[in-house]
Structures are given as C-alpha cells and as structure tokens.
C-alpha cells in the first residue's frame, strides 16, 4: 500500500464505511440535540471537527510523555482547554448560535467521539496520520449531523438555514410544517432510519443476530 492510498483511506473511511456515529456508536449525544436547525448543526460540526483534529495532533505529539495511569485526565484537560477556546469564540462572534447551542458546546469535552479517537488512534500514531484520522472522523460526524439537520429543518419549518424553502400553508403556500420534526422523538427515528439505510447498503456493517431462530424440527413421517 502506497502512502497516498493510506492517506485517502484514513481520511475517507470514517465518512461512511467506518462512520463514527452510525457504526461505532460514538458522539451520538450531541449529534441529536443540535440538529433542529441546519445552522446549529453546521456550527456544531465545524467546532467538533476543529477540536477533534487539534486534540488528536496535540496528544499525538506528546504521546511518549504521557504516563499511562493519568492519560485520561491529561487528554480531558487538553480537550477541555480547546473547547473553552471554541466556546469563547462562539460567544464573541456568533452570540445567537451560541445561545441556541446552550450547554452542548461545552459537552464536546465529554463527546465520546473525541476521547474515543484520541484513545484508540492518536495515542499510538504519529501526529500527521492522527490528525488526518481525526479530521476524517469529524467529517463523518458532520455528514450525519447535516443530513439529519437538513431533514428536520426542511420538514419541521420548511426552511433551510433560516430561509423559507417550502411556502407555508399559513402564508398562502402548500406546506404544513410537521411539528413532530422539531421534537426529540423524531431525531431518534431519523437516526434509526439512517442507520438502517447505511447498513442495508453496506450490508457487512449489519450486526449478527443475538439469537438465531430455532431450526424447525423435521416432520416425523
């Protein structure tokens, strides 16, 4: 394998084939809460990708010096510092979105995706591949967020990025917004459906059944 293909596979594998959300069950917590509108979903995706990439780079640079026993604390402190910086930037320049995201930006700190990647990958690899891996995982996460955010905002309010796309029935159009799309349950249903679609197309991702149905006994002649 040449280094070029490995670069591409490291970057593109997490997009769908190794998607952190649909396959590895990482980082779901925030993935659903911020997807009522596309703007918050995109902000969250960008913030997470930046934090993840930088954290992976930093941890990978000092990976030889972190004592094994306190590595979790060290990683969390690094991630938390990055998150504080992002949070302050958002509060300063995007006050509206920052208010809409409420505590969820702070929760990037405990996003399992960040610690999962630093723990599983950045701790054993050189800075450059770790950052590519982290960036790829950030993109995979963003992909899921943007798909769900688009569906929820489009059908919940008829808008995309706050711009009216489907004319509302109240204002002489034909579209009646689905209030359910803005509530919590729809996010679960949509993500469940997305997992189903992804795993049906890439069938090797499907989980094996926990119990196989008992074989029907041969009818006795």
């Amino acid at each position, binding site marked *: 394998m040449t280094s070029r293909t490995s670069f591409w596979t490291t970057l593109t594998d997490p997009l769908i084939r190794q998607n952190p959300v649909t396959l590895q*069950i990482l980082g*779901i*917590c925030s993935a659903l809460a911020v997807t009522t509108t596309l703007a918050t979903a995109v902000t969250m995706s960008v913030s997470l990708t930046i934090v993840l990439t930088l954290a992976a780079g930093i941890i990978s640079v000092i990976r030889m010096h972190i004592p094994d026993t306190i590595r979790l604390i060290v990683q969390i402190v690094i991630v938390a510092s990055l998150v504080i910086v992002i949070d302050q930037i958002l509060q300063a320049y995007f006050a509206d979105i920052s208010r809409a995201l409420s505590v969820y930006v702070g*929760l990037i700190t*405990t996003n399992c995706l960040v610690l999962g990647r630093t723990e599983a990958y950045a701790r054993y690899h050189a800075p450059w591949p770790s950052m590519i891996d982290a960036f790829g995982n950030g993109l995979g996460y963003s992909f899921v967020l943007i798909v769900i955010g688009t569906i929820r905002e489009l059908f919940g309010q008829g808008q995309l990025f706050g711009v009216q796309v489907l004319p509302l029935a109240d204002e002489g159009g034909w579209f009646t917004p689905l209030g359910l799309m803005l509530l*919590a349950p729809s*996010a679960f249903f949509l993500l*469940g459906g997305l997992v189903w679609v992804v795993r049906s197309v890439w069938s090797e991702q*499907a989980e094996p059944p*926990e119990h196989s149905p008992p074989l029907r006994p041969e009818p006795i002649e």
Partner: protein
Amino acid sequence: MSDAWSFFLFAAFVDNMPLTLFLGLCTFLALSRRTESAIGLGIAMIGVLGVTVPLNYLIYQGLLAPGAWVWAGQPDLDLSYLALIAFIGVIAATVQLLEMLLDRYFPAIHAAFGVFLPLLTVQCAILAGSLFMVERQYTLTESAIFGVGSGVGFAVAVIMLSAIRARLSYADLPAGLRGLGIAFILTGLLSLGFASFAQMAASP
C-alpha cells in the same frame, strides 16, 4: 416539601437526560443490551450525579462565579470560563474516589458495576448536570435534588430500554435494523412516551 417533590419529578421525567435532552446516549445505548448492566449503570449514574452536581455547585459558587473572590479584595475577578475544566476535574476525581471506596469496602458491588464507573468520567449527562446547574442558577438544595432526580430518570429510562431490547433480541428483524438501528427507534418511542410527562408537569 411538595415543591421539592415536583422539582424532583421535573428533573427525573420532564427533563429526562437521554430521552428529552439527548444526553449520555453513548452509554445509554451501549449498555442497554442486558438488564443487569443497565441496572448497574443506572445505580452508578444516580450515585455520581447526586454527588457531583452539589459538589460542583459549591466549587462554582465558592471559587469561580463572578464576585466569588470579594473577600480576597478581587471583586472583579470572574473565573467562570474555567468552569468546564473544574467540573471535569471534580467529576473525574469523584468517580475515581467512588471506585476506590467501592473496591475497598464493597468488592461485590464493585465487581457488579465497577466497570461502568470509569466510563462515567466522560459521560455527557454527568457534565451536563453541572452545566445546567450553572445555566439555570439552582441553589444548593435544588442542585442536589436535580442531581439525584436526573440520575433516577436516567436509570428508569435505561432499564426500560434494556427490558424491551432483551425481548426484541429474539425477534426476526431486517438485517440492517439489528442492534443499533432498532435501539434508536425504540428510544424514539420511549421518548414519545416521556413527552407526555411534560404535559403532565405543565397542567397543575
């Protein structure tokens, strides 16, 4: 008294961590395969949330909030931006301490759900409990009730989900829906059920 009780119900059911606020879903889904592990996780959540939220309240009000250093002649000092690191530190330390205490004095309990404790350091719901406490400006009593209440809400939800999943593991589902897919849809249905609690709280 009834105020405290209704606030407890609010924290446990209306503001249910996994089902309404999407918090702590990673462990919620990963550990709801079997009922035993779900019960262990639920108990650990109640314990850790009940301890860390009031503890973080004391630390926030005593050291970080704007004006907390008036006695030292620093009335303008505002350290609230350090809250995230402080909270994470407190949570990590509490979890570690809890694990060591359990290991020393209750080895049976430790063997049963000690494995879930380290996971809770990076649990969104636990950190969120403390962050909500700051954002909504709870008092010490309120934050204690909120901590225990949201822990109980989490435990109820995760045990219910695990019971349903245990039944469904015998069902013949489409291949792509097995495991994670159906778990999401079940969570959505549970979440619909819990949404009715929000109505209940609004009515009296």
